[in-house]
């Protein structure tokens, strides 16, 4: 661990179990500050679980997590979750309009989001201002996903956890969102962990990558390792994705 790549998040022997079921096993590793790390692996590998641990929605059964070298349990949960923002996989919405949803992070703090700011956040994700008053029940899957991303940006977190945020988008929108995230990463030095099923995206966007399977991290390194995996399991996974 050198000084330039000081970890934003560090996992030490983290296990997560629900009853008898072992969902994460012995996860150890770091997410370097100011970098984008992509997280890939088959469905059910434990990727979402790992993100929820970082945001404090759940706690490890055993092992330790550090956020900027501080034990996660020593950080107040509200402060932690504003500092480590997450865009949840299902892009859940609260009842109301797009504006209600975009301003949610602010209203939770007893503040409000101005219409201008809201419009600017919408613009970031490629939605035009007319969406502001739209009821969220009327959004398409892709629009919903974009509102969810914009909402996550409102807290201006310096660590962002993105759970398959482009899965419902068309190719052009995917490119736009990728550019947006890369831009945020470069401009504000935001640390990003990005779960994706798209290997091309994982290689292109990620500085680093983690490959997960069956609750274990089976490989970590520069994201280009996915181009020529050295481990058999990773090789098989990559081939499976390309089919």
């Amino acid at each position, binding site marked *: 661990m050198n000084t330039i790549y000081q970890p934003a998040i560090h996992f030490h022997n983290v296990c997560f179990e629900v009853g008898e079921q072992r969902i994460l096993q012995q996860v150890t590793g770091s997410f370097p500050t100011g970098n984008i790390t992509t997280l890939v692996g088959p469905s059910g590998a434990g990727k979402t679980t790992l993100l929820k641990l970082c945001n*404090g929605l759940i706690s490890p059964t055993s092992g330790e997590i550090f956020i900027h070298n501080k034990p996660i*349990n020593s950080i107040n949960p509200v402060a932690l979750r504003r500092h480590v923002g997450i865009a949840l996989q299902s892009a859940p919405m609260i009842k109301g309009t797009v504006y209600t949803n975009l301003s949610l*992070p602010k209203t*939770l703090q007893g503040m409000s989001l101005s219409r201008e700011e809201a419009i600017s956040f919408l613009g970031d994700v490629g939605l035009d201002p007319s969406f502001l008053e739209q009821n969220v029940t009327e959004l398409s899957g892709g629009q919903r996903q974009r509102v969810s991303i914009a909402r996550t940006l409102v807290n201006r977190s310096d660590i962002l956890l993105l759970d398959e945020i482009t899965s419902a988008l068309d190719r052009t929108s995917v490119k736009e969102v990728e550019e947006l995230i890369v831009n945020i990463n470069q401009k504000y030095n935001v640390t990003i962990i990005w779960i994706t099923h798209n290997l091309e995206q994982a290689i292109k966007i990620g500085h680093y990558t983690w490959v997960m399977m069956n609750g274990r991290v089976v490989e970590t390194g520069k994201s280009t390792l996915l181009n020529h995996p050295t481990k058999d399991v990773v090789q098989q996974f990559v081939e499976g994705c390309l089919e």
Partner: protein
Amino acid sequence: MSYTTLSLTLLFVLIPLILSKTLHLGLEKDTLIATIRSIIQLLAIGYILKFVFESDSMVYVLLMIALMIITATFNARKKGKNIKGITWKVAITVIVVEVIVQSILLGFHVVPATAQYIIPISGMAIGNSMILSILFLNRFQGELESHRDEVELILSLGGTPKQAIHRQLITAIKASMIPTIESQKTIGLVQLPGMMSGQIIAGASPVQAVQFQLMILFVLLTSAAISSSILGFLSYPTLFNDRMQMLKDKF
């Protein structure tokens, strides 16, 4: 009414029994149990009340109220098994309702402070509080189950448990109060309330019966509002741990 005439009314039990048998409703056993239980319970309470009224001692009145509170608590808590300390929470709710109702009625001398008034009114206030608690707990848990992703979303953005659960809590409080309010809108139009009917049959003047009935309705409104609100605010914190995480087995 004599016991001989009362026994004639058992014909009303025979009819559902025959219907149940011929239509294969399978309700014979439950109907019989319900009948026998109501006979025993009501006769017992009749004689107990007679004794309490005649003894003219507040100790017995308090004992009876305590018994009502305990029974109501144990009935309602079944619906909130996964809420920690639900027994105490329901008990506190019911006690607060009873104290507020009696403070107003006795404090302002609305009714005389005798067993004859205190006990039936307590029964209605506590009974209603119990039903409201059950309605509230049912609805609250239903709301939580169907909106857990919303609760999780608010937590994930840095909201507190109270903020995360606010909408579900308010919905459940509101929903549990609606039957009480709605039933009062049509009261008297179709069906005369049971207590009023009883008084009229027993020979009281209809106007006086109406006055008492109105008083009871207002008591029930208060009992409904207080019950769901108190229980709501007592129960939501136990659904989260001190790291502000949803306890999975409770959602």
